[in-house]
């Protein structure tokens, strides 16, 4: 087995083992931590498709994370107050069903990614980073100033949304949902990287000119990747909101975009399990260092600096060595 495959398997097992241990030891807090890791990793898997595979450094993925969150918040708040979202021209009611919420989150963030991507991808480099950041901030201030759904205070949802056949309020069952979705996203991400689309997208990242010369438009590849990326991060947002039973404009803030990016950089850009490793380390540091000092972000910053300076491949890159060839 290749070394990276082994590390990936260990990470997956570890993420599964912690909540199982916590279940036996009756420490539900750690189950929740593992759930957060799975959800953050999912958001990172989404962003990694844009950054790692497409070379599109989006600093606005909070937009999709937030939209996913508000898809849950809006639907569930209408469901809990028994008020329809819309009565004319046709009736749309709120929903307490996770699958309905997920589909809504994926569609909403996909559409947003289509619009944001279509405009932002006309630029490149620093301008792309700035424009995506600007779109994220636009949504942030929009939600702050929109009183119908809590404005600055956000929205609290009193009951966790349901999934047919499961008790979602049971921490381990909710963890199972997020773990399975993360697994599916990872499988999809692997397939994508090896597919014709992945080959072309990856080549466009390395040489736009090359891709044009063989008759493929790089813009369309990138826009498609951006939309897929946004959809996955949006789904993570919906799960995050469900975990907290709370949504607020913070989900849209640039700090959120930054954090998702930190997961990838810590774990290893363009590595399949990079976001998983990164999110796990992030949460671990938050717990350990956060207990020592309120200013634990200083240490996170130092660590990030070291990774960028000395270990460009992140955790996975350092442990697994050079990237495996796709052959």
């Amino acid at each position, binding site marked *: 087995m290749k070394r990276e495959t082994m590390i990936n398997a260990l990470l997956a097992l570890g993420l599964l083992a912690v909540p199982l241990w916590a279940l036996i030891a009756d420490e539900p807090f750690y189950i929740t931590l593992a759930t957060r890791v799975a959800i953050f990793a999912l958001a990172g898997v989404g962003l990694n498709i844009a950054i790692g595979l497409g070379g599109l450094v989006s600093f606005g993925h909070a937009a999709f994370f937030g939209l996913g969150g508000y898809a849950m918040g809006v639907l569930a708040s209408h469901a809990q107050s028994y008020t329809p979202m819309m009565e004319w021209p046709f009736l749309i009611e709120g929903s307490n069903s996770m699958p309905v919420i997920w589909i809504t989150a994926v569609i909403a963030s996909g559409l947003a990614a289509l619009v944001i991507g279509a405009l932002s991808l006309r630029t490149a480099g620093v301008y792309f980073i700035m424009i995506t950041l600007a779109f994220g901030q636009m949504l942030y201030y929009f939600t702050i100033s929109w009183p119908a759904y809590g404005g600055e205070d956000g929205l609290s949802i009193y009951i966790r949304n349901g999934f047919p056949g499961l008790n979602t309020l049971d921490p381990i069952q909710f963890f199972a949902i997020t773990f399975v979705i993360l697994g599916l996203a990872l499988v999809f991400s692997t*397939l*994508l990287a*090896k*597919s*014709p*689309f*992945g*080959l*072309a997208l*990856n*080549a466009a990242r*390395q*040489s736009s*000119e*090359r*891709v*044009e*010369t*063989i*008759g*493929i*438009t790089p813009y369309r*590849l990138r826009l*498609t990747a951006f939309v897929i990326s946004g959809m996955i991060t949006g789904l993570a947002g919906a799960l995050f909101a469900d975990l907290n039973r709370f949504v607020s404009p913070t989900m849209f803030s640039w700090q959120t975009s930054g954090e998702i990016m930190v997961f990838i950089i810590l774990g290893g850009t363009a590595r399949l399990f990079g976001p998983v490793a990164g999110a796990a380390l992030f949460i671990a540091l938050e717990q350990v260092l956060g207990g020592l000092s309120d200013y634990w972000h200083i240490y996170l910053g130092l660590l990030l600096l070291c990774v960028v300076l000395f270990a460009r491949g992140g955790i996975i890159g350092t442990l697994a060595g050079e990237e495996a*060839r*796709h*052959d």
Partner: protein
Amino acid sequence: MTDPVLSVRGISKSFGALKASDDVNLDLQPGEIHALIGPNGAGKSTLIKQIAGGLRPDSGQVHFLGKDVTLLSTVARARMGLARTFQISSLAMEDTVLQNALLGALGAQGKPFRFFHPVLKDSALRDIAETALSRVNLLDHATMRTSELSHGQRRQLEVAVALTLNPKAFIMDEPMAGLGTSGSQNLTTFLDELRHEAPILLVEHDMDAVFALADRISVLVYGKIIATGSVDEIRAHPEVRRAYLGEDA
């Protein structure tokens, strides 16, 4: 005379006061190798960009397969069957040799929006890619990372990618550069055959190769074609000797 595959009609392009292309006329007949030579800074690269796409001429037209393609994008021209190789390699350096060739085959097939089936297991694409690689003697290096190839091998891979497109015309920008004596002899033999598949517009500094291969030569100096003719005509042309080959050539 048959209709030319590619014809450049009165192209001019200026950058400020600099006339990079000055009323250039050029055509490529079926089955021929038409060499474009000229000293550094003569405007060869600018002309290539206007023919292959990426740079729009101020005036004049480019016709390809009887159609005016002056306003078409690089992508559209590539789709029509205009294959270009680059002077400075523009390959995907992190990818393997095979992946680069597969990319060409994928472009020719025109269906890149497939997300689930592994491209390496697509036998139709692999056949095209591997045939092209074996034609330029790179099949043994298929699993090598492109960045590990020598300069000359990258040139060969550029040609292989162009082959996967099954093009109607080639534009090759200095394919011999960095090849060494035996390498450039091999490529010369190969291009000699290739002209029967599709005509080649060859930009080249290696005069041995040019004189060995070209059916016709055009000489570009300061953005102007100062002469077009057979190898012997160009060798004998007084203005060409003065401007380019040196008085005693």
